[in-house]
């Protein structure tokens, strides 16, 4: 009983820390953003950002739309590469994301993208729309981890009057800007900054069509079977008991978990568990799977290998093994955070 009391005291302290006093009516009006730097007593001007509550956006995949846009990504050499995309959605859950041009910097004209890049888009488009493009997560996290401001002066994006919202990361993971239609909240642009304030990734719409012709569009479909992972009940379906990180960056929580069934497309790997952690905007993937000993013909007992890490187009990734368990951590966060998360999965 003493143990139970202690557990509950600790749990209650944790819970109180995260508790979000949401109004019973569900309205967010009472959840005013913290804004220690710009609230209370500061004279408002026509150009000064104003502290606001958390905005609500309409995401393009939720409306019928044809969106031409450019993605900027900082590569290993510090250069912002550009990719042209066409995004299509029917507002009923179907999406299509095509890559239509690539430029290695900010100056050169767009050229036809390589076959490899087109294949990557074909394989990843569902995940890119869901995870690469920022989406606001739990309100508790958004309040705890960010201060929110909006610019008083609208900006034009693809001919649409938009409001620029800035989420300043209190944990210093990098601020994020959003450009949303002033009338509808449709997200037409975003910029993710790294901790130093440099642009990591940016999207800007160049044309918007809210009455697209969607006849004949080959909508994206899952390439492998997936299902939500609900915890111990799904251990049997997963085929093993997953390892958990003992460390997460401050302010992060588990947003979702899903199980990806292996098959011929991923030889030598068992079913994969992917957990998505978020601070409300920034994401961390922690994935794991068992390597098939039959496939590689090796013994894995007690195997601990070096952890390989690299920067893949602005995303830091680490992968390594504990015995037959292959682990992966991927995020826009710093490599130091990646290493800390990865190391925390290892046993003492």
């Amino acid at each position: 009983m003493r143990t139970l009391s202690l557990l509950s005291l600790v749990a209650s302290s944790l819970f109180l820390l995260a508790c979000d006093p949401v109004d019973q009516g569900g309205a967010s009006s009472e959840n005013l953003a913290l804004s220690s730097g710009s609230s209370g007593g500061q004279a408002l001007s026509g150009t000064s950002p104003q502290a606001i509550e958390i905005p609500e956006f309409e995401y393009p995949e939720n409306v019928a739309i044809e969106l031409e846009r450019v993605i900027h990504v900082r590569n290993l050499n510090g250069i912002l590469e550009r990719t042209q995309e066409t995004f299509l959605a029917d507002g009923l859950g179907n999406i299509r994301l095509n890559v239509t041009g690539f430029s290695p910097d900010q100056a050169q004209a767009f050229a036809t993208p390589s076959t490899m890049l087109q294949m990557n888009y074909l394989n990843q488009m569902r995940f890119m729309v869901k995870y690469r493009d920022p989406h606001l997560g739990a309100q508790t996290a958004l309040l705890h981890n960010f201060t929110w401001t909006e610019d008083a002066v609208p900006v034009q994006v693809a001919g649409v009057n938009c409001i620029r919202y800035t989420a300043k990361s209190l944990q210093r993971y990098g601020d994020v800007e959003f450009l949303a239609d002033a009338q509808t909240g449709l997200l037409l642009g975003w910029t993710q900054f790294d901790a130093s304030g440099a642009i990591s990734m940016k999207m800007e719409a160049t044309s918007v069509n809210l009455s697209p012709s969607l006849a004949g569009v080959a909508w994206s479909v899952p390439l492998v079977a997936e299902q939500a992972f609900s915890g111990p009940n799904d251990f049997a379906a997963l085929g093993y008991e997953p390892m958990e990180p003992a460390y997460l960056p401050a302010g992060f929580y588990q947003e979702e978990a899903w199980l990806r069934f292996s098959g011929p497309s991923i030889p030598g790997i068992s079913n994969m568990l992917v957990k998505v952690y978020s601070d409300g905007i920034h994401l961390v993937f922690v994935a794991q799977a068992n390597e098939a000993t039959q496939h590689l013909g090796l013994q894995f007992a007690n195997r601990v290998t070096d952890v390989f890490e690299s920067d893949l187009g602005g995303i830091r990734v680490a992968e390594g093994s504990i015995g037959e368990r292959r682990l992966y951590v991927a995020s826009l966060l710093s490599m130091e955070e990646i290493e800390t998360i990865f190391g925390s999965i290892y046993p003492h």
Partner: protein
Amino acid sequence: MSQPSHQPDLPQQIAQDLRALGGVQAPSELWQRVQEERSFTELGEVAAPEELWARVQAELGMEVAAPQGRLLRGIFGGKSLAAAAALLIFGGLSIFNPWSSPSGLSQDFVVLAPQTSESAREAFRSRAQFQKVTPQEMSSISRGLAGSLGGFMVEDDA
């Protein structure tokens, strides 16, 4: 978006009771002390600091005797049993998977990871040997995960 872990919905009264707790925060170093000294699986063997209850009381602004043998009895007044049961359910589940978000509640009710000392972070990093490699040396799965977040290698356009 896939649904997070399935957990039973809390009764509305319990959810309301929990919301009524407001923005009370635990002592900031509580989590750090727990995290540094013990893993989650060993929490059951750890004795709480003697002054913990007094500090929690001070935060709540209530004068209630520390529970003796009964969980949180009287701490929330007349709603103690319902709130305590909710905390047991939520807290217990959170302890076993500390980062999970209970989907029985609104997705807004999440447990956020606390600050971790630099020494603890260094200790975690020291458990593995990290080797920087070129993107091509990473596996297709790593590339796929990076691609999901928008990271493609320059060579993907070669």
